[in-house]
């Protein structure tokens, strides 16, 4: 009987450890994944990003190139992951899916 009690306690401890590990892993994954942005904010930001992608000047034009690089840094950074996250969130919404379809999947390195 004493042996059974020890086994139960060990099993409970193991289960608790497994659950804790799983919860920690889930928490870490949530922290690592980029937050899903607000849809309207994303649509405006990515449209501006795409605008700057079309503004790369002929060389040499360092001033205009610097302006474009600054625009890209401000409006493009992270939008590939955000686009993927929004497509996943709204995968059952045909209107939003169509809005998001106008954007290229991958524009960042």
């Amino acid at each position: 009987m004493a042996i059974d009690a020890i086994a139960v306690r060990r099993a409970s401890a193991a289960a608790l450890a497994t659950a804790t590990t799983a919860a920690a892993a889930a928490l870490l994954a949530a922290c690592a994944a980029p937050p899903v942005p607000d849809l309207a904010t994303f649509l405006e930001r990515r449209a501006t990003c795409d605008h700057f992608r079309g503004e790369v000047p002929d060389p040499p034009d360092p001033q205009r190139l610097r302006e474009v690089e600054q625009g890209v840094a401000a409006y493009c950074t992270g939008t590939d992951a955000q686009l993927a996250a929004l497509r996943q969130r709204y995968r059952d919404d045909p209107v939003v899916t169509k809005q998001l379809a106008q954007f290229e999947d991958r524009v960042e390195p």
Partner: protein
Amino acid sequence: MTAAQATATPATAGMPPLTAPPLPREPSGRAWVGRFPTSASVADCAEPFRANLTAFIAAMGAAGASVNVAATLRPPQRAYLMHWCWSIVKQKTDPRSIPPLDGVAIAWAHLDGQGGYDPIASLAAAQEMVEAYGMQALKVAPALQSNHISGTAVDMAISWPGTLSIARRDGQVVHIDSQPRTGMNPDLKAVGATYGVLKFVGGASDMPHWSADGH
């Protein structure tokens, strides 16, 4: 295979091929970068934006404003070259997978002495192009589509002294004495809109940019 199939003579035997042979393709590299340059001519814009922009610039000129056009049409061939050399270098796109574009006989995939694919030479040539375009620090793929590529956008610097008395499209003269005395002036933006030339909707993030739809 049946005997009949094995012995059949193709109907086109002895005839020239129906499709033209592929054009010789020039390997990618720095030489491509000077081709298909951006235009600074309003005449290269697409109608009706061309006529609208011409009228707006004429109105500004008549009012005494200084207008310096820096860019209008960015040819799609140029966009194609910029996009794909960047993609090969920054996104590790396989040069053999790049779709062709009419009018640009470029060979993204270089061949070695034995006629086989040479990935190192292909990447080096694309890197040359990225550097010649000045895109080493660019953290995004150049666009394949834009208002500039469609001929419906312009980058121009605008300034004037004192009050600008400028005619709207309907002939009504507007006196602009507000600040700034540049293309960012809200009253001038309103005048431009009467001509179908819209200031960029993104605010001050791109000050010289105007287009047919504000993008």
